[in-house]
């Protein structure tokens, strides 16, 4: 069953088109992450779904009801903001019950719901405090609680973890995932953090310039990006790109020839043409294991960045720097010459002009 349906949505601010004829269908219970660089329109899309921005054109349906002209409060959504947006003069309990009081709910019911939300989020001891007396993590919990008490069908998160420090972010990320697992509500989550996107999402929508580039499961987006932008955006450290040409079943770049046997082409197999080859740093294998792979080459280590769990090495290959992710225990030093190799099945080929996947 469809929970949220965005249909032909366009939003323009004067001459600037922020969202361009966007359609997206979100089934019930899905955790959808809108991912993109700042200014790509992801927050704008969320605000349109929430009803905080009027679209220039298009429709929004929530639970099979056209809510395009509804007030935010009448759409059955709860929203969590980056800056928490807690009402500073009200206690935590006051913050949680504000929406319910506006809906003129009986007092007993309000108390029941506040108590339940406080229990789920473990903020019971904080109910009488003002937001100023809470830590960042506690504030965001209360903000989630404010959406929770209203018993809505759809949760909207607008970069909820961006104001928290790294450790808290990781903790709350797990908590949000757990919350989704228990409640099974539809959740739409905006972020620019790809780790949040990969870990939380059932599906990720990668946006650029008001258009969804790819809408797919995290693994699919990671392994088979539809274009060069998506490939470059997802993955850290970033994917390596080689500029070259296709010649039959071979990719030629700056004097090197990479055989492409095993690469699954998207459509008809092109025989000639300018192309990009992308290979992720963790898919480049070094040492003896590399020798047995279809593509092998010799490279000299340029810089080594040890990160504990793994080591990122920069090597010179085909006239450019290549990122290689190695085991954290690997003993490599600047100046070492090593054999590297990769399986073309794990690479991605993009047309040079259109930058679409081949």
């Amino acid at each position, binding site marked *: 069953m469809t929970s949220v349906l965005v249909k032909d949505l366009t939003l323009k601010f004067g001459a600037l088109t922020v969202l361009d004829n966007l359609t997206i269908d979100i089934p019930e219970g899905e955790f959808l992450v809108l991912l993109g660089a700042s200014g790509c329109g992801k927050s704008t899309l969320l*605000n349109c779904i*929430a*009803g*905080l921005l009027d679209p220039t054109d298009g429709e929004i349906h929530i639970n099979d009801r056209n809510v395009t002209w509804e*007030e*935010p*409060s*009448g759409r059955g*959504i*709860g*929203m969590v*903001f*980056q*800056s928490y*947006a*807690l*009402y*500073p*003069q009200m206690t935590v309990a006051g913050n949680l019950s*504000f*929406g319910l009081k*506006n*809906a003129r709910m009986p007092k007993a019911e309000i108390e029941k719901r506040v108590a339940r939300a406080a229990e789920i989020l473990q903020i019971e001891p904080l109910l009488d405090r003002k937001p*100023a007396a809470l830590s960042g993590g506690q504030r965001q919990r209360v*903000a989630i609680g*404010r959406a929770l008490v*209203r018993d809505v069908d759809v949760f909207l998160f*607008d970069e909820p973890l961006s104001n928290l420090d790294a450790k808290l972010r990781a903790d709350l990320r797990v908590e949000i995932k757990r919350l989704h697992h228990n409640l099974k509500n539809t959740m739409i989550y905006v972020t620019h953090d790809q780790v949040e996107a990969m870990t939380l999402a059932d599906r990720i929508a990668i946006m650029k310039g008001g258009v969804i580039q790819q809408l797919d499961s995290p693994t699919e987006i990671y392994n088979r990006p539809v274009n060069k932008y998506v490939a470059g955006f997802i993955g850290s450290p970033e994917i390596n790109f080689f500029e070259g040409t296709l010649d039959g079943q071979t990719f030629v770049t700056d004097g090197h020839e990479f055989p492409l046997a095993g690469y699954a082409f998207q459509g008809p197999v092109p025989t000639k043409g300018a192309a990009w080859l992308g290979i992720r740093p963790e898919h480049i294998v070094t040492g003896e294991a590399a020798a047995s792979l279809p593509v092998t080459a010799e490279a000299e280590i340029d810089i080594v960045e040890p990160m504990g769990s793994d080591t990122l090495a920069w090597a010179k290959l085909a006239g450019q720097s290549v990122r290689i992710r190695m085991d954290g225990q690997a003993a490599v030093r600047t100046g070492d010459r090593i054999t590297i190799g990769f399986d073309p099945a794990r690479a991605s080929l993009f047309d040079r002009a259109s930058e679409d996947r081949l």
Partner: protein
Amino acid sequence: MVDAVTPRGPKPRRRFSRANVMLYGTLIVVALYYALPLYVMIVTSLKGMPEIRLGNIFSPPVEITFQPWVKAWAEACTGINCEGLSRGFWNSVQILIPSVILSIAIASVNGYALANWKFKGSEVFFTILIVGAFIPYQVMLYPLVIILRELGLYGNVWGLVLVHTVFGMPILTLLFRNYFTSVPEELFKAARVDGAGFWGIYFRIMLPMSLPIFVVAIILQVTGIWNDFLFGVIYTKPADYPMTVQLNNIVNSVQGIKEYNVNMAATLLTGLVPLIIYFASGKLFVRGIAAGAVKG
């Protein structure tokens, strides 16, 4: 004995550095400059006329008398009317209270709407309102007389209240708009998701957050309206003259002897209201002005 002290902890500062002497010297001179006239007024108002005629305006009173204050308040004459300033005081209060309440109530809603509920043409509307603040009052005096006459409010206290409310609008709306703009937008969005409407958000979210800016507005309006002379003398009848106009009539009367002590007492009495407001609310005033700059 070179470098006997190891630098450690806070760096020692010289109390009488050149910068300090300059700073405090200037401050003291400026403070004296402003305090001296006040001193002269206070001592003069406490002297009898014979003592004033001696001409030592800086000397403290030999014989302290409160008679000038009593006379200024209850007996001084303006024209045929000898009730002192007390009547002007109550007139001013009657003008002040509705003007302050009305202008702030309207301007705060204006500012809130302009900051948070942008409508088509809201920027143009705001610009026009601000331009209004730069037009000299004198230009509008006569048109206003006609408008008030047509409304049947000319010479009436309520006519003056209306004038004060209108003229307070540009600066107060600007004040409130800027304050409400500094309130995070997400707070406003959250309240909308929570189902609060225009008035709900205004009364339950915005108002409780904006005490400092209301204090600033009250101070601006109370002092501005209390000190107003021009509108008071033009738009009211002598029976309704505010305190400032009456003070002028007492001090500038050309008949009889000049009672300097009574004039000083009358002036101090008139200035008392704004003075009390400043002293009582100085801290809040600064907090209100600085609000928006410091947010937790």
